[in-house]
């Protein structure tokens, strides 16, 4: 039995259907990431799981119990928000303990629980401070601590790292992954960043315009995308899409990852000209324009190409993906 089950869940705001029927099973202890472009309905779906938004139709089950009409506080969930959402008038300790206090737990129990969470996140020195006296990274750790204290059946994260700078984002990401291992809890995590999704998830749910495009482990999505949307969304830099007809193929679109596109100044399949070069040290990204549009080539190590120089690109056919005119994968 899944820790979280969605059955035909939809959401309509006024006349617009924002979530168009989502079926999903999240297994006990799984780290499940919802990923998709901004505005595709990830937060709305998460808020429906939390009970902060009514479900227009369909069922939400947590641990097998239908919770459509259960108040958020009674669902045994905890949520971490992008904007931290700490209570400004309470100390860190009281922020973390509020849910237990509301649930009628004794002072000693609350103290034990908050101390334990503080220990896991190294928050001990901050316990008597107020949120205004904390940095962004500290605030987010407190917000995560507040979630841990409740020992919920389900953790919900809504883009928790988006307000942090790059270095903190990596550090906090690792911390969340460690917490997942230590607690063995079921987590549902929303992000628009495919790197976060790839690095954290046991399973990724790719959403577009309120619909699930594909569900699978990160490497399944990377190596076996169901359509051009997933193929383009997962993986960085983005997959190249070539017009298959011009290459003498029967499919509509040929998808090829930047590392599987060979570049040469002498000979090859596609004529192109270099428009831009990005040297990252360990790898070099070459952007080249051809009749197929702008393509990215990823080379390992340092390479040099003059801008506007003519080059030849050759896709590695054995690593290519074929798609039909509707963008669906041809296998």
């Amino acid at each position, binding site marked *: 039995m899944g820790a979280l089950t969605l059955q035909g869940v939809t959401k309509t705001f006024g006349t617009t259907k924002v979530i168009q029927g989502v079926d999903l099973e999240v297994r006990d202890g799984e780290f499940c990431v919802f990923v998709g472009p901004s505005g595709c309905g990830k937060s709305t779906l998460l*808020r429906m799981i*939390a*009970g*902060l938004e009514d479900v227009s139709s369909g069922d939400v089950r947590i641990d097998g119990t239908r919770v459509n009409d259960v*108040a*958020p*506080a*009674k669902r045994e*969930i*905890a*949520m971490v*928000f*992008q*904007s*931290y*959402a*700490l*209570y*400004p*008038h309470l100390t860190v300790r009281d922020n973390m303990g*509020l*849910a237990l206090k*509301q*649930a009628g737990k004794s002072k000693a129990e609350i103290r034990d629980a908050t101390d334990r969470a503080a220990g896991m996140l190294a928050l001990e020195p901050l316990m008597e401070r107020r949120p205004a006296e904390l940095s962004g990274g500290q605030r987010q750790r407190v917000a995560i601590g*507040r979630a841990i204290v409740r020992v919920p059946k389900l953790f919900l994260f*809504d883009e928790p790292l988006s307000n942090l700078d790059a270095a903190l984002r990596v550090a906090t990401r690792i911390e969340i992954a460690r917490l997942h291992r230590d607690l063995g809890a079921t987590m549902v995590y929303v992000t628009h960043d495919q790197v976060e999704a790839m690095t954290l998830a046991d399973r990724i749910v790719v959403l577009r315009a309120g619909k699930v495009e594909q569900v699978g482990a990160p490497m399944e999505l990377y190596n076996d995308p169901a359509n051009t949307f997933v193929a383009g969304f997962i993986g960085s830099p983005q997959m190249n899409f070539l017009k298959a007809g011009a290459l003498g193929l029967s499919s509509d679109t040929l998808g090829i990852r930047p590392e599987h596109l060979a570049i040469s100044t002498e000979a090859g399949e596609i004529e192109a000209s270099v428009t831009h070069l990005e040297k990252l040290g360990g790898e070099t990204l070459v952007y080249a324009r051809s009749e197929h549009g702008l393509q990215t080539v990823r080379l390992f190590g340092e390479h040099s190409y003059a801008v506007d120089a003519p080059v030849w690109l050759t896709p590695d056919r054995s690593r290519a993906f074929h798609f039909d005119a509707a963008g669906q994968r041809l296998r």
Partner: protein
Amino acid sequence: MAARSPLGRTIAAHAVLIAYTLIALFPVFVIVVNSFKSRRAIFAEPLALPNAETFDLVGYTTVLAQGDFFQYFQNSLIVTVVSLAGVLLFGAMAAFALSEYRFRGNTLMGLYLALGIMIPIRLGTVAILQMMVAGGLVNTLTALILVYTAQGLPLAVFILSEFMRQVSDDLKNAGRIDGLSEYRIFFTLVLPLVRPAMATVAVFTMIPIWNDLWFPLILAPAEETKTITLGSQVFIGQFVTNWNAVLSALSLAIIPVMVLYLIFSRQLIRGITAGAVK
């Protein structure tokens, strides 16, 4: 213009502000100064400060001797403070409902509540009087409190709902997940964050109530329910006006609003400049 130094700009800005302050405070200054002068001196030299010769407390002694004056003061304070509390509490609650919950007719309800800003409540005086007569509330402070609460609500709802829309949804949602009731969310999370807006509303609500002459005259002219503004009118006669007493009464009447204003002012300034300084 662009070459103007910051110092020059600061001086210019201060000059304008000081000039405005002088103009605004001048009538108050004249009232307070003259309340301490003898009748003859008031007319002889209205702008002069009181000196040993012209100093006279007759206005104050008249006012204070008029036994009911403290009663008037008390009436005004009760009416203002209770109406203000009503306006702030109900206005904030209505604003929270309008900004937080999606329900049928939400927009319409908001418009209906805001309509009161444009339609002066005095147009309804006759109907209000009939209602108060029917309810047996004529010559009670309750009548005034009810009218003033109604009068203050539209602006309060309008301003507060705008501010409440800006309070983070995440914060309210965090409260819901932690099991806070909607009332707790309203009182402990939302209200403290819109405190500057509350202070702004409080000041804009309080001053017209304190200064009103119309409704006390019509709804509660009895001796025991007179407000200070109405009470001061006894010194203004058709033929003779006791200027000493009028000026003293007005000077005294400034004190309570001033105290209330000082309570709200720090928050008020934040409320008015909220848009600019963010």
